[in-house]
């Protein structure tokens, strides 16, 4: 007998306009991209094996894991309009349905935002990356999603579209409001993500998991730095699996900005990042592990950027 998922309908669409019209007419429908989060969530709801994810994704129906009625899905995975990756001057524009594998191997992404390429290459397995989309990674809004810290340091702007409201552009930190929560309306699709690329950045992306492949990150750090001589002219620091929603960690950036690079300043930035995490999240069961490890990771990522500029030895 066939094992079936609790799905009442899958609407197949051939254009973004048609997709938006469907969402406008079917308020409970949820977009299906790669399905690597959504189909796991539906299967778990149906009574399949439980996987360790708190609550399940808050999707367009806002219902999360408790809703037992069969879902109505809008399949957007085949829309070529949403799969484009292109450089537009200094801006990098990535379609929401670009596969994570495509983001990982795109020469445009490698040139403008190598941290994002590395983040995409860290997701799941080959099989997962071949289906998973960048838009799905954002809209699922897991605090441990690999792309989010990399997008945060690149000041990503998320482009949403609906039939009723036209286009809305939100910064990543505005769109993702908390763990598994976004402020997108049920009739809105994420269509693209725009990043500030630009040369001259030294970049570092670090990720800790229980093993190298197929594990959700326990901590992620992304750092961009620009130097003028030995002075830190610009710096952006973000962390994943550390905060409820994606953000830059300003106290850590302030420890470095405008001053000559030093190892002491790198250590200070790490400590400031860890303190900020505790200030925002409070003390939790994981704090004893995460506080020193986040401090060490930020320090190391900053030193890696400095080492790439020839201002420090490569930190082991």
């Amino acid at each position: 007998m066939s094992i079936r998922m609790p799905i009442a309908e899958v609407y197949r669409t051939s254009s973004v306009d048609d997709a938006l019209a469907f969402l406008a007419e079917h308020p409970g429908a949820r977009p299906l991209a790669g399905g690597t989060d959504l189909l796991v969530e539906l299967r778990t709801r149906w009574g399949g094996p439980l996987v360790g994810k708190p609550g399940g994704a808050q999707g367009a129906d806002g219902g999360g894991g408790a809703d037992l009625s069969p879902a109505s899905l809008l399949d957007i995975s085949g829309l070529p309009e949403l799969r484009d990756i292109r450089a537009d001057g200094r801006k990098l524009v990535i379609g929401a349905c670009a596969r994570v594998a495509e983001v990982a191997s795109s020469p445009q992404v490698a040139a403008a935002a190598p941290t994002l390429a590395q983040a995409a290459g860290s997701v799941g397995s080959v099989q997962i990356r071949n289906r998973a989309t960048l838009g799905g990674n954002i809209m699922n809004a897991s605090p441990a999603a690999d792309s989010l810290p990399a997008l945060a340091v690149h000041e990503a702007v998320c482009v949403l579209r609906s039939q009723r409201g036209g286009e809305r552009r939100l910064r990543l930190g505005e769109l993702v409001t908390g763990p598994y929560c976004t402020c997108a309306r049920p009739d809105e699709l994420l269509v693209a993500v725009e990043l500030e690329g630009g040369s001259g950045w030294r970049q570092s992306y670090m990720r800790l998991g229980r093993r190298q492949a197929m594990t959700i990150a326990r901590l992620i750090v992304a750092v961009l730095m620009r130097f003028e001589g030995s002075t830190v002219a610009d710096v952006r620091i973000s962390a994943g699996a550390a905060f409820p929603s994606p953000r830059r960690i300003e106290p850590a950036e302030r420890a470095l900005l405008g001053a000559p690079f030093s190892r002491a300043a790198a250590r200070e930035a790490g400590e400031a990042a860890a303190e900020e995490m505790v200030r925002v999240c409070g003390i939790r069961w994981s704090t004893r592990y995460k506080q020193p490890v986040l401090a060490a990771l930020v320090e190391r990522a900053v030193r890696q950027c400095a080492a790439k500029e020839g201002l420090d030895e490569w930190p082991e």
Partner: protein
Amino acid sequence: MARVTLTVNDRQVTLDVHPGERLVDTLRDRLGLTGTKEGCGVGECGACTVVVDGDAVNSCLVLTVQCDGAAILTVEGLAPAGQLSRLQRAFLEHGAVQCGFCTPGMLMSATALLARNPRPTREEIRAALAGNLCRCTGYEQIVQAVEAVANEAE
């Protein structure tokens, strides 16, 4: 019900499928292609790996309605006339098969890799197989089998 047309192991089939039917269900229950295994059902183990339009994917996380028009290769397609492929023979020669439950998925991940990159490094082989779990062999023999085929490539 939705009508889909798939090309499975070079044979075209048209089916009416339930919207909630997964590709692994269609292959095993409707088409009798039980070489593809289901382990975890949630993308973690790779036992259900098949190749869709050239890409290795978990057939437990793909709906059949999403595959309309796609070309699908399963483990049965590696030996269409009962003749094992070079990769399958290498698995046997290197002792890469014990209980065999992971083997179809391993073969499909490795087949997709070799089609794209005929001479992968050991690291590339390990990365390509990272989404396939094996509880018997300890992986070494599997990597060696893929390496053996890679070393023969032009």
